[in-house]
């Protein structure tokens, strides 16, 4: 389904700031996989997702989505098959437009946009139903500007926007990190539900090891642009957070000194 073949991404090549963010990384995912990604600050998690989404072009290697080589396809073209939710709740929506308008933009994702009305009656009804399913009361606020929503409400809306046209792949980059714990839990549940109902293939970056093991069916740990741990199936079921930390030190030859990872 998704096949990443030995990709490398180097920032500012040739300068003193040269940084290999992704280092000869390969990864294959099957249809319906829900992969969680953990790793310390600067491990390359966001860069990996950005390379898949086409925000950055890779310096070496290839990326295939459904056997199609998308390595050099521009970001906006890949977006037709890839849904994304960002860490920053401000990033996923147009704040000065209504909830309904934002959803209409998302719903037209696969189409060529022309001079037809942006919001059709039948669609508006469907948007309302989908919003109601989020259970946040947003269905009564369709005509309000998104700028008035809280961070959690926005992330829920962005999730809906990313999945309202079924994407081949859903990319979530610490999409609950900016939320308070209770809201984060709510949005995570919603994420799991949407992935399950729509039978999506998804990659979720998280700094919460417990969540990483609890959600999805496969977990990888990244370090210095490489995948250093990869658990799935039975093996993963037995892994605990403590074991992960131990394994990390073993594999990377370093002590996991990342407060953000440990504490959560």
């Amino acid at each position, binding site marked *: 389904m998704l096949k990443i073949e030995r990709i490398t991404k180097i920032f500012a090549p040739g300068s003193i700031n040269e940084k290999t963010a992704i280092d000869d990384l390969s990864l294959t995912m099957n249809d319906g996989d829900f992969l969680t990604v953990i790793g310390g600050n600067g491990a390359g998690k966001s860069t990996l997702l950005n390379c898949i989404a086409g925000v950055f072009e890779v310096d070496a290697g290839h990326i295939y989505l459904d056997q199609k080589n998308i390595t050099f396809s521009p970001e906006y073209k890949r977006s037709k098959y890839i849904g994304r939710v960002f860490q920053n709740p401000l990033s996923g929506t147009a704040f000065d437009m209504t909830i309904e308008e934002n959803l209409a*933009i998302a719903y037209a994702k696969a189409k060529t*946009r022309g001079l037809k009305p942006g919001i059709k009656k039948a669609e508006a009804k469907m948007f309302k139903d989908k919003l109601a399913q989020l259970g946040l009361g947003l269905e009564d606020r369709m005509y309000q500007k998104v700028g008035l929503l809280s961070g959690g409400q926005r992330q829920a809306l962005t999730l809906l926007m990313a999945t309202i046209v079924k994407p081949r792949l859903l990319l979530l980059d610490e999409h609950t990190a900016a939320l308070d714990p209770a809201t984060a839990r709510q949005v995570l549940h919603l994420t799991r539900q949407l992935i399950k109902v729509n039978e999506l293939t998804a990659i979720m970056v998280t700094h919460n090891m417990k969540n990483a093991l609890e959600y999805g069916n496969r977990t990888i740990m990244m370090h210095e642009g490489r995948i250093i741990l990869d658990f799935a199936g039975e093996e993963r079921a037995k892994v605990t957070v403590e074991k992960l930390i131990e394994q990390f030190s073993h594999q990377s030859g370093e002590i996991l000194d990342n407060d953000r990872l440990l504490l959560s």
Partner: protein
Amino acid sequence: MNTLVLIDSVELGLIYAIMALGVFISFRTLNMPDLTVDGSFVLGAAVSAVMCSNGNPQAALGMAFIAGCAAGSVTAILHTKLKIQPLLAGILVMLGLWSINLRVMGSKANIPLINKATVFNLLDGTTIEAYATMVIPATIIIIIMLLLFYFLKTELGLVIRATGDNEQMVRAMGVNTDTTILVGLAIANGMVALSGALIAQYQSFADISMGTGMVIIGLASVIIGEVIFGVKSLLRRLIAVILGAVLYRLVIAMAFELGMPPTDLKLVSAVIVTIALAMPVIKERLMTWRKRKTNHQGEVRKSAEN
């Protein structure tokens, strides 16, 4: 102010309102400070004057719009493909347009249109002939406003508006932002050029320097409209821009009546825009000042009670 001046100002305001709506698209909808305006306004006027001289006043408006679209497209391409900052891209195109406009005008700095037929002659022979200079601009601006209102709610219009809010989101929704910026700036400058074309026919001449400071006048109209008539809904915003443009003309006319020399016009425009731009800050200052005052009075009262 006498009625004649009043009517003139409203007529002018309605024509300049087309330009102001163009500025609204670039500055507000796309969130892009586009300075092409000063050049594309004259481009429209130049095309219009030349075509009027050849007896095609209606077609002149269409051609002017298309020419303006082309100018806006160049600015968009400089920004999106060559990664030049929008401000600089606009200045570059504006500079280049000076020469192009002179070429269009046949190397003359001024084209008079005395005794040439214009769109304002369209109603000749009808009962409302005497009101042509009011009826025609009013009709045009209403049609344009309705078209623009519809357009900004189409599939394409929605993503153009979203581009000004959040380009990252628009790309994540499968849309090439280079295209939305191109379409937006083209339409914006097309409208600016159309406004210039009408002004040339209204005042019966085109002049190479008639666009200087135009972007500021447009911005002033947009801001005056926002401050006085509000930003609630899209339709209301568009109407506010038109009313803002008319109001701006009235203010200027009033200043002339009060004896302001015409040479001070640009200074007054700059001052108006400065005040309008500073409005949010001034409002906030006033609020805190009032709050402090009431707080202070409260404290004084409290200590008096003790």
